[in-house]
């Protein structure tokens, strides 16, 4: 069964919110997962893995702090959704030549859409690197993987984002539908379900406006 990209975005947004991210971050998580699926990359798998790993963790332990010049998380590994949003917010600095160093980062695949947005918004070419992988965001997005499996690993020890000329690699092959396994869909659906209020007799009667007859 394939999914429309809108369904993937909506499910991912709700799942991210259900896992405790703020609405604004969840909106961007939805768009990011959609971007990855539309690029034929395993975005839903990465999101499901991340949300499971960080379920219950506080924002303060996952967000970037830059006391040492390198973004790092107090709790160990950076959340790529929080860091990704911050990368977009700091895109101008990066485009102007200020390289960004990130410490240990979970599911770094999820950073790709944010760096792509940062490059696009500033009409510049950015490069994203972690051990075994270089991604260049220019006229095309090109992936150069030197260690098999580097792209969809659970964690990277360090990540670097720089303003750099177009690099080599395999261009993305866009698709119009997402292919998500039932197991991954189930994980995301369970997180999304946390955003739904239990159905009660009172809410069923009044919440949508009982009013006059709807069968006449």
């Amino acid at each position: 069964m394939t999914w429309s990209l809108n369904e993937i975005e909506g499910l991912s947004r709700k799942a991210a919110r259900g896992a405790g991210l703020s609405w604004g971050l969840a909106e961007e998580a939805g768009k990011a997962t959609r971007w990855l699926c539309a690029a034929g990359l395993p975005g839903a798998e990465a999101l499901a893995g991340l949300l499971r790993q960080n379920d219950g963790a506080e924002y303060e332990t996952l967000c970037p702090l830059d006391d040492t010049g390198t973004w790092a998380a107090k709790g160990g590994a950076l959340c790529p959704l929080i860091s990704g949003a911050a990368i977009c917010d700091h895109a101008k600095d990066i485009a102007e030549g200020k390289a960004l160093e990130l410490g240990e980062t979970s599911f770094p695949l999820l950073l790709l859409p944010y760096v792509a947005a940062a490059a696009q918004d500033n009409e510049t070419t950015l490069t994203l690197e972690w051990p075994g992988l270089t991604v260049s965001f220019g006229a095309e997005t090109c992936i150069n993987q030197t260690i098999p499996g580097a792209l969809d690993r659970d964690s990277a020890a360090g990540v670097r984002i720089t303003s750099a000329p177009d690099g080599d690699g395999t261009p993305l092959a866009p698709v119009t539908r997402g292919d998500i396994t039932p197991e991954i869909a189930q994980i995301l659906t369970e997180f999304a379900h946390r955003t739904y209020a239990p159905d009660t007799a009172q809410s069923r009667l009044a919440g949508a406006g009982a009013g006059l007859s709807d069968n006449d």
Partner: protein
Amino acid sequence: MQQTDSIRIAPRDPNVVMRLARLGSFHQSRLSFMRVLLRRLKAENWQFERGVFDIDARGVGRAVYTAHGPHRSYSLIAFANDLPPEKRSDRVIATEWDATFTLFDGIPTRADLERLYQNVPRQEAGRITETELSLSRANRSVRLWDYVVDCLAHGQQPDQGRIDDVGYLMRTTAVYGSGKFGAADRETTAERDEFQAPFQIEMLSVFLTRAFVMDLVEHMAALRAPETAVPLAPKLRRRFGIGNSTGLGMAPFILNHPALLNNWIAAREEALARIRALPEATPEAAQSFCDFAKRARLHAQSWQSEHPIQIAKLDDLRADMEALIAHLAEADLTGDMPWNRLWLWGETALAVEGQELLASLLMEPYGDLVDGLSCCMAADEGATWRIDGAMQVSDLRAITQDVYGWALEIDWAGRDATARVWYTSEAKLEPRLGERFDEPIEPYEQPLCPGRDAARMFADLADFPKGPVAGFLLKHPEHRHVVRRAQIAARLPYAEIRDNTIDASVLPIDMLRAKLSFFGACHFDPRSDRWLRINMFQHAPFPGELAGGNADDWTYPYLEGRA
């Protein structure tokens, strides 16, 4: 030829337009999506055929209606059902309907029809694919369906008064598009000329649904009494639109599509400003306007509702139409910026209902100034969606004061100001509105209260005297969604509703009506403060009549002796 200096009239202030009471008084216009669709179908000479119509005496079966455009064909696939009356409900939580539909991209094969038969009647519980563009359902009007079948079976025409009391034989209870339940994403069809304007897929689906429903009622009568049954008289047939029940789901939609909302309203405001700026009007245009005003009066007279709020609004509207027509008898409508003078008169002489109808009516004689604006009404939300993290917090503070000044004046500690909560129920994901202080629903609150959230964000900005927004957002991720909204609304003046959407007195039907007016709906009939009924395509030509008639001039009743 003497050059007349035209004076630029600015579009109206968003602080005036974007109030809920005004949005809830909008009317259909030349820019409404139904009218955009029918103008195109006519101009491009679309052809229509009924490829399949296989429905038994119980009313169970299927039908396929295909519309052939210059480049592509689209097919409405209908599945008719024999629904026990106790199962009939317009709520999202219903599980069976009298008829279900999908708009297919092309012409379906037998295998497509079998696949869709397994899924479309189940609606949200089924799955459709990227060859399907919409998913919808409809229920019969209990007041009218059996009566009309009976009349026709006995060889009689139904009574016009009874038809007009309801206005439709079936009403749709949801029309899903853009990727829902597996359907094609809007992005995959948005580049096609015929779907460039918003909601054209949904409007085409409803237009063909109306044709199906009328064929079905005649078919049922003919099966019941083959010897005596007659079809509906063409003039009566046109009096049936297709009904629609709309609930709370539309309110989140307009809050979640700020660029789209902006573009709809900006097009309408630009049209109004262009017409107000005209230095003079021809006698023909003036006469045309006066005729439309009289027809709109008839429309207001025939508009019925049992809801006290709408009854009061209709009293306003009818009085406004009398005042307008009395004023027109005296007014000079040809020189000295006649429409601007009329508009300024209306701002003081008419209630909000009448003012907004006047805005729609002024567009009627000026298709050449107005119709082209429909191409500006689509939106790419992604183009304005990303946060500008380099913006200085002082600028964010300034735009917050500009866009949300009204919200910064509200006492958000007061219970009335935050009395309501928008949430989604786990029961078929039905959108609902609850009572914050009476129900345990606050943990499930959706971000549909921009005013309150902007006020909270503004309060926290006090601790950030300077620096870029990026730093503020890293510290305050809970404000991220509303920083985005503020930045969008600073660029797009009509993107934000400038009213409290969680106040104890909020009327969700105002948001529903704003959206439905852009669809082209008429006869708004609230059934509570949070759902309403409307009529679509009433008096419109049927598919086969488009080529030979007027495709656009049908939304107001004709004056006596003219057609």
